[in-house]
Each structure stands twice: as C-alpha cells, then as structure tokens.
C-alpha cells in the first residue's frame, strides 16, 4: 500500500516521497503523523498490519477516535493529554488492542515540529498472553527444579500450597492428599494477600483431618467465622468445621469462589488443592499456570512415590545382601577358624567345600572337585582298610561319630589319628551329600593310651599284692596245724572279706575304664547258656543257701553265640544282685530261652525293688539306690553300669521292671544270631 499521506494540508508538509515510504513501510515500528488537532495525517503500512484497519479509515481521524487505543486506561489518557509536554521523549506502556483483540503494550516516541506530531510506536509485548507465558515459563522451570529437590511427599504438598497461593494471590489454599479411595487428608495450607489474611491468626493445623472429596463447597460465614460448610473437600465427614477454616472466617467472609484443582497424572490421582478467593470469577488468577503446575506436582509426587518404593526396595535388597553377606562371613569365619577340618561332599562323594584346617591336617590343599574316597585315605589303628563311612552315611542318612578308630593317611603318607563325625545333608527325603568333620585326635589317643596303660599298670600292681594278701589269709584260715582262736578267725575273716571286695572293685574299675575307652573286645563263640548259668550258680551257691533263698531255673539248653566271659559277667552280676537285694527266704527266677528270632533272658526276684524316683538312674555309674544304701548292702555301683555297656555294645537290649518292696525283673534280649563281634584290645574280666 505504501506510505499514505493526507491531501488536506499538502502544502504544510511535504508529502513523503517514494524513497522515504520504502523506508517507513519496512520498519517494525508503527508511525503516525498528527496535525495540531491530533488528526492522523499520515501512517505507514505497519499500522494496517498491526491493527487490521485500512489506512483510509485511519487517515483524517482523530487519534482519540481510533478503535485500537485503549484510552480508558489512566496511562493512555495521560499520554494523550500530555502529548505536547512529552514531545521529544519516550512514553512507555500504552495499552492497545491488536487485530485479534489481544492487549498489546506499546512504547511511544514523540517528535514535534511546526504543529505536527510524529509518533513512533514500538510494540513492547503482549501482556495478557506473552507476559503470562513468560512468567509461567520462568515459574514452571524454577518450580520443576525445586520440586525435584524436595525430600518428602509432605514437602511437595506444602510447596504446592505455597506456590498456588502466590499464583492465585490473594487466596487461601488447602492441599489434600488422597489417603484411600474417596478419602482425602488435608496435609498443607497456605494463605496470601494482605486483605485476605488481614488480622487473621492461624491457630490450628488442618493436618490430620480427613475430608470427603467433592467438587463444590459453600461457606456460611457469620461474625467472622465459618459456621457451615456444604459440600466440597471442606465438608467434614464428622460434620465439624476444622479449626483453621473456622478461624479463617473473617478472611473468608468475602469468599466468592472456591476452585478445586486435582493433582492428576496419567489416570492416577494423588490429591487436590482448594483455592479460595474473594473474586467472583470462573477461573482463579493464573489458572493456566496453576493447572500446569498441578501436573508438575503430580509428576513429582508420582516420582517421589516411585523413588520411595525404589529406595525401600534397594534398602531391603541391601539389607538382604548385608544379611546374606554377614551369614556367609559368619560361616566363613566359623569354617576358617575351626580347628576341625570340614569337608562337604555331594552324593557322588565329589568334594564341594573344605576349610583351611583340612589342609593343615591332610596336606591336600586343593581337594575341591576331587573325589573324597580317592583323595582322603583312612586306615584302622591296626592299619587295615577303613570302612567307607561316607557311602554309608549317604545311604543311611544317619549321623555317625567315629571315635578312637580311624587314622588318616596324609599327603606325606604320615599317619594321623583322627576322630570323624559324618552327617548327611538332607533335602526333603533325599540325601544330597554329607558333611565330614575331621578332628586331630593325636592328643586324645595319647591320653587314652596313657590312661589305659595307667589302668593296666595300676591293676596289675594292685592285683599282685591283693592275690598275695588273699592267698596268705586263706592259708592262715586253713592251717590245720596252728589253728586260730575264734576271735582271730573272726578278725581275719573280716580282713579277707574286705580284701576280696577290694579285688572286685579293682576288677570293676578296670572293666569300666576299658568300656569307656572302647577297648574291650567282644569275641563271640558258641556257648552253652545252661552250662554258664549252672557254673555261676555253683559259684554263688553258698550265698543264696546262707539266705535260704529259693532259686528257680528255667534255662533251655541252647547254644548262644556270645562272648563267654561277657555272658558270665552278665549272669554273675544279675544273680549276685538278685541274691543281695532279696530278703532271706526270697525267691529268684532265672529264665533263658530262644524264642523265635530272639534270645530272651530274665532274672527276677521278689526283693527290695528299686524306688520309682530312682529308676531312671539305675544304670548310671556309681549309682546306688537309697533303699539298699540304708540297709548297708555292699556294692560299688558299677555292676549294672558295666552290664548295660556290655549289652549295648554287643547288639543286645537290657531293661527292667521294678516295684519297691515287690521285686525287680531284669530282662535282656539279643537277636538269635547272638552278640556282635567287636574288635578291641582287652577282654573284660
């Protein structure tokens, strides 16, 4: 269109030439030329572009009649009134409306000459849109960073309340968190605006109260206090008005609008904010920013929740890891520091795990993955091959302790006495392998040997003089040439009895020590039980005859595959006990029969019996029941202990039934096959 000028007063002002109009039309500024009546006499095409008005409708019109200036504003009025006075200067912030009706702000530069005014407008910004967007962008970029820095969900909600209060200023904000479906809990509160909050003292905290959620709320305020709330998040489930709201009454007296804005993100709701304002409008101030901000808050909360969950998971994982590590460390420490060697093998006897002690014991330093049986060699004390206890354990699943028997052959072919414990690793009903614990038993064996040697020596040394004492007394008592006086005979007889008791005690102690060392042998052969019983009855004949006791013998003539010495000891012990602990004229029954696949032996009496309370201790070493101690019946408390050990170690069972003052029955049972053979160094006697 080109630069256009009025034809009304062409003489007063030179019409703008084409060259000039080219310049004017290509600037970004709006240029108006006014005469002294403030009528537009010239304008550039920028005016048309900006305001969407043809130049001919602009030219010759008074500037005050132009529709695009908003001269209602104080500033614009001031601008027109002071056009003369402001000439030569800049005038800022003149409101105008662009071709779309949007508010724009212009800066004006005014020139004045010969009654003409030249106004050059520069478009500063579009306040309603662009300034809000600028503010919004700046705000959102700031808060999005702050939101990420906040540590807890509660911090985020409080931050949201503060920010929304600022954006909607003046406003009162309640932020509510969704605690369960349909239930909100007020977690944050903020208030802005002098008018709004004037004279208000917030005395309570809304935190902790649970409200129902709905969209609208109506407040009834009387004398500066909220007396009624209908609907909305502020309506209490219990019908009471929360203290902060009640106190806010004065401020809320002017409440015109309540807006609810949700914190939603991707279908999840985390809470909402109630914006209470004194303005009657459809939207709170900065509603666009608030909405976007609410989204950011939702994202931040979602992120926080995910983060919290992640942290919790990681913590839990870490904890598990720490626990596992600690358990492993503990095991490691135990395994490593244990003086005993550990070997774990699978069901094929492949070694899975060993510890340092095994290396020290055996010299094999990388036994893992090797076969146990092919790596570790064991022999007996007598240097014969040792039975495969690992296979047995895997097969039977039973724990086995091998004490005093095994010798480990080390890598350097040294022989090391060891004790072994082998136990199976079970899962459900399967044996997956076993744990073999090997202990250096050198010292124990040495001690055992020393103890055993001591006992042998002591018994030998004791027995020789005992035999000498006994035999000498026997000669004295039987001397037919030099008869002892009655008194002498009596005393010497007492010495003799004591000496024989001493001999029995030595014998018992020796047997106990052998039983405990496990060095006694069970050497079974075919033995006639009848002959054994008869021979013992002959030995003890004098004793039961003295007490006028009746002996009932029901013994089958059968061969019992048993150690003759041990069998003798068993009968001897049970019979002498029965005689000792049965009154004069009492009755004693001896029963021995082969019944099916069992050999059954009973020795029953109708004697003193064993007190019920003490029945559990009867097989204990050195135990003697109270009732026999009171009667001063001789005994060393070793007999039954020895018998039980013998029976237990030779494959039999022993038990008893007893009633005080009624009598006792001892029962022994062996399989028909007889006693189990047991290798040992010494026989019992």
């Amino acid at each position, binding site marked *: 269109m080109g630069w256009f000028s009025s034809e009304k007063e062409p003489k007063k002002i030179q019409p703008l030439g084409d060259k000039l109009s080219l310049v004017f039309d290509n600037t970004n500024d709006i240029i108006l030329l006014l005469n002294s009546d403030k009528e537009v006499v010239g304008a550039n095409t920028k005016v048309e572009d900006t305001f969407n008005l043809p130049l001919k409708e602009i030219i010759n019109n008074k500037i005050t009649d132009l529709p695009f200036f908003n001269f209602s504003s104080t500033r614009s009025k001031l601008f027109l009134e002071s056009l003369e006075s402001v000439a030569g200067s800049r005038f800022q912030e003149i409101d105008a409306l662009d071709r779309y009706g949007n508010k724009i702000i212009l800066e004006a530069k005014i020139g004045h000459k010969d009654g003409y005014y030249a106004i050059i407008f520069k478009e500063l910004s579009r306040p309603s849109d662009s300034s809000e967007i600028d503010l919004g962008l700046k705000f959102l970029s700031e808060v999005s960073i702050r939101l990420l820095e906040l540590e807890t969900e509660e911090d985020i909600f409080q931050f949201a309340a503060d920010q929304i209060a600022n954006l909607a200023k003046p406003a009162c904000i309640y932020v509510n968190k969704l605690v369960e479906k349909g239930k909100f809990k007020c977690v944050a509160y903020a208030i802005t605006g002098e008018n709004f909050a004037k004279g208000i003292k917030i005395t309570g905290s809304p935190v902790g109260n649970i409200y129902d959620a709905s969209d609208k709320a109506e407040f009834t305020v009387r004398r500066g206090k909220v007396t009624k709330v209908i609907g909305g998040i502020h309506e209490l489930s219990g019908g009471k008005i929360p203290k902060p709201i009640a106190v806010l009454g004065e401020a809320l007296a002017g409440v015109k609008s309540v807006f609810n804005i949700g914190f939603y993100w991707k279908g999840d709701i985390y809470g909402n904010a109630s914006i209470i304002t004194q303005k009657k409008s459809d939207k709170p101030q900065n509603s666009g920013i608030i909405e976007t901000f609410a989204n950011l808050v939702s994202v931040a909360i979602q992120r926080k929740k995910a983060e919290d969950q992640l942290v919790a998971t990681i913590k839990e994982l870490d904890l598990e890891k720490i626990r596992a590590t600690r358990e492993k460390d503990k095991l490691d420490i135990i395994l490593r520091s244990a003086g005993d060697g550990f070997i774990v093998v699978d069901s094929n006897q492949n070694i899975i795990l060993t510890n340092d002690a095994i290396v020290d014991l055996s010299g094999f330093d990388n036994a893992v993955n090797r076969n146990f049986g092919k790596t570790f060699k064991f022999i007996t004390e007598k240097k014969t091959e040792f039975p495969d206890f690992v296979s047995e354990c895997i097969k039977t699943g039973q724990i086995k302790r091998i004490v005093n028997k095994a010798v480990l052959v080390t890598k350097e072919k040294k022989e090391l006495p060891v004790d072994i414990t082998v136990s199976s690793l079970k899962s459900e009903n399967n044996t997956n392998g076993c744990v073999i614990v090997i202990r250096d038993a050198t010292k124990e064996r040495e001690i055992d040997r020393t103890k055993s040697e001591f006992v042998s020596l002591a018994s030998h040394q004791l*027995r*020789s003089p005992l035999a*000498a004492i006994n035999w000498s007394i*026997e*000669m004295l008592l039987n001397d*037919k040439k030099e008869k002892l006086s009655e008194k002498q005979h009596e005393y010497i007889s007492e010495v003799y009895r004591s000496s024989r008791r001493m001999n029995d005690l030595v*014998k018992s102690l020796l047997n106990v020590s052998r039983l405990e060392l496990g060095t006694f042998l069970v050497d079974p052969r075919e033995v006639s039980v009848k002959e054994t019983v008869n021979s013992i009855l002959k030995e003890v004949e004098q004793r039961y005859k003295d007490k006028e006791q009746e002996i009932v013998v029901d013994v089958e003539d059968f061969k019992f595959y048993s150690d003759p010495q041990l069998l003798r000891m068993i009968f001897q012990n049970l019979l002498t006990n029965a005689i000792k602990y049965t009154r004069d004229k009492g009755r004693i029954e001896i029963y021995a029969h082969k019944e099916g696949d069992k050999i059954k032996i009973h020795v029953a009496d109708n004697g003193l019996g064993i007190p019920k309370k003490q029945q559990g201790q009867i097989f204990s070493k050195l135990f003697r029941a109270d009732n026999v101690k009171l009667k001063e019946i001789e005994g060393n408390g070793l007999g039954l202990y020895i018998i039980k050990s013998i029976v237990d170690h030779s494959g039999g069972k022993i038990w008893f039934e007893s009633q005080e003052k009624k009598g006792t029955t001892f029962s022994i049972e062996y399989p028909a096959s007889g006693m189990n053979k047991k290798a040992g*160094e010494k026989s019992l*006697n």
Partner: protein
Amino acid sequence: MADKKKVLVVEDEQALRKALVNSLKEAGFEVVEASDGKLGLEKAFKEHPDLMLLDLIMPKMEGKDVVAKLHEDSWGKSVPIIFLTNISDPIKVAEINDISSSNSTLFDYLIKSDWRLEEIVGKVKEKLGME
C-alpha cells in the same frame, strides 16, 4: 611215692609262690618250685612235672618264652600248663587267647587275684583228671 603227681610252680613273687606250693603240698602233690622263667625251664626239663603253674610276667624269661622252649621238646609239647596272670597287658591277653584256644585241653589260665587257693588246687586236680 610214685603215684604222687608232681607240679612245678614257676612264680617270681615269693608270697604267691609260697602260698601255692604250701596249698598243693597240703593237697598231697609233690611240688617243685622256681622263682623265674629260666630256672623254671631248667626244672621242667630236669623234673618232668605232670603239670606246670606258670606265671606270665617274670624276670629273665617270660612265660610265653618258656612255653616256646618247651615246645621244642617232645615231652614239653605234652605237659599241661595253667598260666597265672593278672591279665592286664593286651599283648599278653592275645597270647593267652592264642595259646589256650590252640589246645584248650592242655592249656588253661587264671587270674591270680580272682582265684582262691582251694579253687586253684581244684583246677589242678581237674586238669590232671583226678576229680
């Protein structure tokens, strides 16, 4: 006294030897005694007793060595022997078990402190088929 049975007592401990000798004499045996294994072996060959009571642990020559020497001789192989022992040494136990089970009619053993003199005399008589 041709029908008197002759018993050789080989025992190093004097009190025990004396008691055994006296008891056997009282029971009507002809008794020869020796205080160690070596002397015992000499007396055995010289006297050819009907039975020997032989201690196992003795100075100069142990009981089992006496038996070994006796077994080199035709008479020695047939003489019945009752070993006297305190049965404490495991090796001795094994030896006694070996010897006595190899010929149970010829050999026997007893634990000195467990046996009364009259029982021993009884055992001797039993061994010699006198009862």
